[in-house]
């Protein structure tokens, strides 16, 4: 597997892609067949026959999530409908030392739900009941397979909505959002999933059911909920989530602003945020990304724009009115040549449609592409964008930029044609170099898509061995058997009993008597 970096969403090569070699991240088919058999037996006793998939034809459809570059056929797929069924399967995995991977809708972009060839894929798509909408408490209690947008749909009638809105919100699941600490366009003002999950019922890697957090904010003791949110399925599987509902704003204004260059659009963004105005979202798309979105959804963005900003203001009407005047001024002062205000819900939807479909839409202008995800301090935006443009020019690899400008979360889309000799490698090189740019500018290798299998190899660029070992200690505390999504997040997956190889002396925490080495 050549692509160890860059979130590659590749359309091809369709025919002739060879099976990935078995690695510590993917496991080897046929390993622990007896264990798999035993888990299958348990699964068949606790859930209907249709919930257990072992037919090779059917298994194959589960070989990847939204990152189709990595493909591994799982040994067994289970589709539990209840917490008890799910816990029983996990318990069986623990009893037989079988690795398991959780999957929601399979839309993740870092291969976090890439199956194990020697393991069980636990799919939550049949656990999709919204258990409760507690309007007065501003809470909803939902099962992990519930679709993000369905929470909003269920709460809208009550005057509320669920704020985190990844581009895939129409299909991504709350369980997956919780695992990845998903973001979205409106995270600028409202925060990530971690700011909106107040409690979860978790099946631990041993198969125990525990409740972390709850309806009330801030449970005493260690913030285990905070540890679990964003742990990418390595600490167990959430079977319910208690999420915050946010009051629908009195007024929403969505603007589409055309600029001649990304520099101008970036400067406008900095001016807006620097003034203290906090829009619900500021999204930027450059000319290539606009071209793709136009081809896909005919969103009718301004002609000839080198960049557009999608700016959304929400809140009390008077506040929005005031902020709108400021935003309009900052845009004009920074070279905006067209400013369009959506006059109704249909126009607003069309503006957002262009932005939200941009990733997949790039398929219209390029046979293959890599969706990169990096984050930088917002002020570094113009510099990093210029550096990306230079990279693109010197390598001849086209890069389209779509990103959450307000919080510096970049999503460069690296375009290539996998059929052309050397194109894939060149694209991967550019994609990797973009991550390096993020790190050197004080940013990080992922803003919201997660590390998964895709960026595990990049973790040592951001963290020292000691940092990574400390993270391992947390992981081992939850999952001493190393069966919960093993091979993800960390570059050199160690069993909890293994002594890390590179370290010359005892871990400082162990030495200080603060921690045990497992």
């Amino acid at each position, binding site marked *: 597997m050549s692509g160890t970096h860059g979130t590659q969403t590749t*359309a091809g090569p369709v025919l002739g892609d060879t099976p990935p070699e078995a690695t510590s991240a993917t496991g080897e088919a046929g390993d622990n067949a007896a264990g798999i058999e035993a888990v299958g037996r348990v699964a068949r006793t606790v859930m209907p026959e249709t919930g257990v998939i072992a037919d*090779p*034809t*059917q298994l194959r*459809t589960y070989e990847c*999530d939204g990152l189709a570059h990595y493909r591994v056929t799982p040994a067994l797929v289970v589709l539990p409908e209840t917490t008890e069924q799910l816990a029983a399967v996990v318990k069986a995995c623990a009893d037989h030392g079988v690795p398991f991977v959780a999957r929601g809708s399979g*839309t993740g972009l870092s291969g976090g739900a890439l199956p194990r060839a020697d393991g069980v894929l636990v799919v939550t798509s049949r656990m999709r009941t919204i258990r409760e909408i507690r309007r007065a408490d501003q809470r909803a209690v939902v099962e992990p397979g519930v679709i993000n947008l369905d929470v909003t749909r269920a709460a809208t009638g009550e005057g509320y909505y669920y704020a985190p809105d990844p581009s895939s919100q129409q299909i*991504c699941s709350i369980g997956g959002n919780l695992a990845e600490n998903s973001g979205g366009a409106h995270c600028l003002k409202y925060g990530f999933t971690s700011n909106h999950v107040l409690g979860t019922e978790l099946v631990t890697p041993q198969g125990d059911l525990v409740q972390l957090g709850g309806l009330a904010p801030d449970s005493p003791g260690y913030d285990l909920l905070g540890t679990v949110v964003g742990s990418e399925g390595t600490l167990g599987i959430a079977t319910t989530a208690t999420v915050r509902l946010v009051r629908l704003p009195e007024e929403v204004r969505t603007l589409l602003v055309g600029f001649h260059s990304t520099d101008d659009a970036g400067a406008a963004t900095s001016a807006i945020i620097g003034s203290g105005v906090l829009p619900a979202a500021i999204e930027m798309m450059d000319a290539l990304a606009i071209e793709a979105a136009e081809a896909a959804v005919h969103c009718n963005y301004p002609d000839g724009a080198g960049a557009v900003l999608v700016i959304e203001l929400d809140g009390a009407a008077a506040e929005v009115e005031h902020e709108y005047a400021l935003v309009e001024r900052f845009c004009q002062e920074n070279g905006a040549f067209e400013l369009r205000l959506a006059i109704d819900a249909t126009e607003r939807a069309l503006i957002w449609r262009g932005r939200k479909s941009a990733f997949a839409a790039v*398929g219209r202008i390029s046979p293959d592409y890599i969706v990169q995800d990096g984050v930088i301090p917002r002020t570094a935006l113009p510099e990093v964008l210029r550096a990306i443009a230079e990279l693109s020019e010197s390598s001849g690899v086209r890069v389209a930029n779509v990103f959450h400008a307000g919080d510096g979360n970049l999503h460069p889309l690296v375009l290539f044609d996998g059929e052309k000799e050397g194109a894939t490698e060149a694209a991967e090189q550019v994609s990797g170099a973009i991550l390096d740019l993020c790190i050197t500018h004080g940013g990080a290798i992922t803003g919201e898509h997660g590390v998964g299998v895709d960026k595990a190899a990049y973790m040592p660029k951001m963290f020292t061995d000691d940092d990574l070992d400390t993270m391992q200690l947390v992981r081992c505390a939850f999952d001493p058997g190393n069966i919960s999504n093993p091979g993800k997040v960390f570059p050199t997956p160690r069993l909890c009993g293994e002594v890390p190889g590179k370290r010359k002396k005892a871990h400082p925490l162990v030495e200080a008597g603060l921690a045990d080495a497992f």
Partner: protein
Amino acid sequence: MAESTRARSDEPQSDPRKADALSAGPVPVGTPTVRPAFDDEHPPSAELISDCVHCGFCLPTCPTYTLWGEEMDSPRGRIDLMKAGLQGAPMTDTMVQHFDACLGCMACVTACPSGVQYDKLIEATRVQVERHHTRSPGDRAMRAAIFALFPYKKRLRALRGPLRAYQASGLPGVVRKSGLLERLAPKLAAMEGLAPVLEKREKLPERVPATGTRRAVVGLLTGCVQGEFFPGVNAATARVLAAEGCDVIIPRRQGCCGALSVHNGRQEEAESFARATIDAFEAAGVDTVVVNAAGCGSSMKEYADVLADDPDYAERAKAFSGKVRDVSEFLADLGSVAVRHPLEVTVAYHDACHLGHAQGIRSQPRSLLKEVPGLQLKEIPEADICCGSAGIWNVLNPEPARELGDRKARNIASTGAQLLVTANPGCLMQVSSSLERQGTRIGLAHTIEVLDASIRGLPVSTLGPQH
């Protein structure tokens, strides 16, 4: 476990990945015992398959994914299965089961940001399934019966008498209440439940002259199910077209357009229906062929693909497809001249999948309806999701079709509309049986019947049977 199953099946080609790895390496000795799923004659296109980036945006609009929540019954899962087939995997019963389960509603085509042409993929796959898969005797018999009946007007007409007598006898209530038929033959029960209450047939002349100044000369497809089960729709179509200044030519020779055959992979049958339809309308010498059934219009616009390999017809089919218009599409383009009289009624408009998803016709019927003074238009929640009719799918898959129908009926009821309007006979039959089961009292009508009533100044009460 799966691995051990696979190991036991011992043919190298049973695993698509291995098959591929092998093709690049040493040539295996001996002939493979497993035949790949597809032959070389128009298998699903690898190029079209490669457009899918596996983003999953198709999942929430796929009726079977919403029902079962499993990947292999989703568009991207089915595309994975096609890919497996292309790579040499055999056409197993399991694989066919997932292709068969697809309703062909094309909601995924609308939802796909990458422009995957799933419609072409599934149709090519279905032709291969029909060619290479042996169905169970029961399934074969059922399909044979359906395809021996529905596409033939005369046979449908022969059924009208007994059906009307049955409906008049009060037996339907007894049969449905007893649940006996459902237990004995669920697919027959599905057909029984779907049959609409029959109206009197109105005989149409071969030519209906334009009222006032002639603005166009159009041909009208009368269809099979539409013509026999909903004859009022054809009569209304002819009247509205004439009122809008069209000479309407209704060729006697026309038969079934072949939509059901096209959508079910029955290639030869589809080709012969397509050729006959082209012949009939070419002889009539019309510039435009107007269709009032969404499924028919959609497949007639595909004739160019259906007959692409026929040297005598390929060009003619292309020209013909270019002339086909849905009636709402045609009327919206033409612009109205006939005076609309008020109809004080709230209408829920249901997008037939083969009109909205397959032909992209959504705004035209709505704008035509909005031209009627007094008419209030309501949108149905989850409008993208199929009602479960899908040609003959509801007959072959009665249980899931009923779930989908009930879901649609609940959504329709939630609008509080007095009249449900749609443009496909299949949807009307499916939705009306679900609404009836649910006890929702709402009138049903085709878009064109509403326009007809408005132009003729008829009262709302004439629209559709009230439940």
